[in-house]
């Protein structure tokens, strides 16, 4: 999908060419860190998760020296994250971050949950891989309300749909933004539309048209009076 932006082998574009051509995409497989066996036993939570959900944990990595990463079955993220939060031996009560990673080259997108347990002073990174043709995953807003805006941002930037999210709309980009999802690797740095078209759309946006009293608020869909062009 992003092949036309991949630079030729050997000739690394520099300066403005590099900017025009898009980010450098590595063409290899998803980088997997080679690690000795049995290291998952060193992190109590990783060990417990492997023992309890042997079929839902896909693999385990240790990155940057001591950071444990668990790859989970994306269809069971809610169940496992709920267990990680509530189990008395895990207690990951702070969801630091929800984000996503696009490696480009048609590889699956990763949704990344960064957890921290205040009780046990432990951190854990949980990843779920989503193939590009099925960018849907359960929302964890029910577990941590902090996921509300963070998941909206992932939806805005990567186009991943979070099922059962109470208020899934764009958050950083304007509501009539129709150029796609900016942090995907196939998105050109300067956007898809021309500068003139971008300016025209920005001026078209009359923010006052978007809200009516009593009809909006957290958890309620905004009542759109002026139909935007994309719909």
């Amino acid at each position: 999908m992003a092949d036309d932006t991949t630079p030729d082998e050997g000739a690394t574009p520099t300066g403005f060419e590099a900017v025009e051509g898009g980010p450098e995409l590595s063409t290899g497989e998803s980088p997997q860190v080679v690690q000795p066996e049995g290291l998952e036993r060193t992190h109590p939570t990783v060990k417990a998760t492997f023992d309890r959900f042997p079929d839902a944990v896909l693999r385990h990595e240790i990155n940057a020296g001591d950071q444990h990463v668990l790859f989970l079955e994306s269809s069971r993220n809610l169940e496992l994250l709920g267990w990680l939060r509530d189990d008395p031996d895990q207690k990951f009560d702070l969801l630091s971050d929800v984000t996503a990673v696009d490696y480009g080259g048609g590889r699956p997108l990763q949704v990344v949950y960064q957890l921290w347990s205040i009780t046990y002073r432990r951190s854990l990174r949980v990843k779920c891989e989503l193939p590009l043709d099925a960018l849907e995953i359960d929302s964890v807003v029910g577990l941590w309300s902090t996921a509300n805006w963070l998941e909206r941002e992932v939806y805005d930037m990567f186009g991943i749909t979070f099922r059962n999210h109470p208020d899934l709309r764009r958050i950083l980009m304007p509501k009539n933004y129709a150029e796609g999802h900016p942090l995907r690797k196939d998105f050109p740095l300067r956007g898809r539309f021309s500068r003139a078209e971008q300016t025209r759309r920005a001026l078209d946006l009359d923010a006052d048209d978007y809200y009516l009293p009593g009809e909006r608020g957290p958890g309620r869909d905004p009542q759109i009076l002026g139909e935007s062009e994309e719909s």
Partner: protein
Amino acid sequence: MTRKTIEYTVGRNPEMGIDGRPAQGLMEPLEVEEPTLGTERMLVNLGPQHPATHGVLRLILELEGETVVSCTPDIGFLHSSFEKLGEYRTWNQIVTLTDRMDYLAPLIYNCAYAMSVEKLMGIEVTPRCKVVRVIMMELDRIFSHLLWLGTTAIDVGAFTPFLYAFQERERIYKLHESLTGARITTSATRIGGMMADIPEGWEHDVRHFIETFPRTLDEIDTLLTTNAIHLGRTLDIGVISAEDALNAGFTGPNLRATGLDYDLRKDNPYYDYETYDFDVPVGQNGDCYDRYLVRMEEMRQSVKILHQALDRLPGGPINVEDPHISLPSKTDAMNDMASMIHHFKMIMEGIPAPAGDCYFAVEGSKGELGMYVVSDGGSKPVRWRIRPPSFVNLSVISQLVEGHLLADVIMVNASLDIVLGEIDR
């Protein structure tokens, strides 16, 4: 032409006593029948261009009389996609993007970014660099809290603390300038060290600052902490319980004001913070006043850390002595062909990072500031993500202001200490 004389009844109000007090006790509300008023709710658009929103933040408020029924924040006005820009830059070039996010505490962002990449690359910086970065981060914690203090005070009508706080900030600006050459866009760190070692006499300037600054802080303290107006505007306003705050992802002073003593400098120490002697202030009620008290005390604790850091500042090199990471000195690059080629290759190609990812969080002035970097083995990141503390803290504002008056929205928003450059990124 007729001359018209108008008599003004200037002077005494017949209902008032001699020295301005009411002649017949306190004024009672008149017994007037309430007119039948429409119950239509009003929509007030606060911002995006309003000084009290502390940036280009837009709040859409639904009001019932003067009470807020619901609040919908609208953000993204400053969005410049730093994360996308970072994917087109080498690891060292990204440093300049970090200080443009939180321009109120740029050095903390510089340091946090460099630390996360160093962690990914497995680089251990020199002891001198560690202490210098601790000094920079604590200095900018004061820097950021002072801006919060001044602007919050002016939001509730206190003008003097604003002037005092900004005068002290100006001194930190000067310290920034002599350290990095810039007042706001510092870009002080590099992977494996700093842009340059601290200039001669800088530590004496810092020491002079931390010796004189607490006096100003005490003056502001006497102006605000027991001030009846300030108390009335902050006590029991924007209350959140510790459990809710944790669930909502609050970190930093906002979380500690609810009574949880979660501080990354203590709980997940980096740069030998466990060897510094300092306390973590916590509040009890989680309201605006506790957030104020926590930040005031944090500035004092930062001064304490700064004293210890300056005392232990070791000598030696500031950058790691590894030719794969650090640039050769300018003298060498200008005089020696091999060093010049080395310099050229380092600048043009960048430093490759091993494949993998790394999340590294520091205790920023506004909360947990995490940097998540993903590499596939190249000299540019595949993904560079900032865990934005203000973004997460702001997301709770609709809960905090519901049921409060419109004027309290300003206070709650100010007490969260947000910076829009980092929320919109």
